[in-house]
């Protein structure tokens, strides 16, 4: 099954998100980071792909999430690394909001 054919799944109510910040949500065995940004909601895997630290404990500023361990950073809109030691894009999920609920394709 291709990624785009995956069904939408409810993740978390928008009302439960920390405004302008990052919220950790578990989906099955996976920890996800849900970002409330000025331009919408984005979702990534919660663990930094450099050192494995939990991005949800990091500093979040606008569209940039910074890892709490080494301060490597990613743009949550496209996953692109913006600061070393992050060098690889982070995994993002297609995200939408329906009836006050954040949904992702997963």
């Amino acid at each position, binding site marked *: 099954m291709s990624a785009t054919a995956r069904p939408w799944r409810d993740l978390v109510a928008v009302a439960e998100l920390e405004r302008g910040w990052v919220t950790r949500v578990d989906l099955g065995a996976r920890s996800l980071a849900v970002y409330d940004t000025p331009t919408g909601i984005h979702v990534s895997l919660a663990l930094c792909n450099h050192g494995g*630290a939990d991005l949800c404990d990091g500093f979040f500023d606008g569209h940039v999430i910074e890892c709490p361990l080494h301060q490597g950073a990613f743009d949550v809109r496209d996953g692109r690394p913006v600061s070393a030691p992050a060098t690889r894009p982070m995994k993002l999920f297609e995200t939408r909001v329906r009836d006050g609920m954040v949904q992702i394709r997963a």
Partner: protein
Amino acid sequence: MTKTVVTPLTQALAEGKLSRAELRALMARSDRPALRRLALWLLVLAGTTTLIALSWNSWLIWPAMFLHGIVLVHHFSLQHECVHYTVFRTRWLNDLVGQICGLIIILPHRFFRYEHCDHHTYTQLTGEDPEMIGMPASLADYLWYLSAIPYWRTKLTELLRHAAGRLSPAEQRFIPKVEHDAVRRDARVMLSIYAALFLGMAATGWWGLLWFWLVPLALGEPVMRAIRMTEHVGRPTVAQMHENTRTSLVSWPWRFLCWNMNYHAEHHYVASVPFHALPRLHERLKDHIHVEPGGYLGAHRDILRQLFDRRDTA
């Protein structure tokens, strides 16, 4: 799949030493505190530079250069904060100021960033922490380290090695392959700038940079070595952050110079907290970390006590 790493921060949150709301407030960034501090920093630098100029034809130039050197070597502290992006909220300002500091103290910023990341991953773990300063085996070892001679030997060799495109096996582990060329380029650019400065001095016959920069830097570096020792030396070589790192309570001038990095255990707990919020983080964590109330001198008394105790029991 990425392996989960439990950071000291995640642990502190889980144990209730910090709440998420407190953490968010502590991590808040702003350019203003750093710009204010930097303005004062430049005034202090101007002051110590003036002292050298005023004492040019007298023996007083040596204490003046030492004083200036103490300020110069503290560009390490500012660069260190820039490595963590905790000086300015504007990220590129951290990169710019970090590069300038690196040029002043002969420490390429990108390389230091990667090395320092590994230091935070493997703090005080023998054979893994690339910045680990070992517990001296004797008083002679202790004094030899404080002379800064081994430091300069290591750093200058490292710079030349990187310019030649050679990375040690440890460096290859902590610097991603895509950055190897950039580390080589940085070292070459840095050496080219220094070469240009020397050629400029030779061409003009004005050797002032030696007396306003390099000699003071060499005179001041033992002070920075002494300060760096207080951070981890003599603490247990274990992974637990509340054990392996020492916070030293020092007076305002030292806190100003080191950008509050005397709150070192707090910094290791939550490296995303900017320098200006570390005193507040200290109030929150002081009962959970190792604090040396006697400051830098107290830390050295502790190191020397351990050194002599070890010798007596050997």
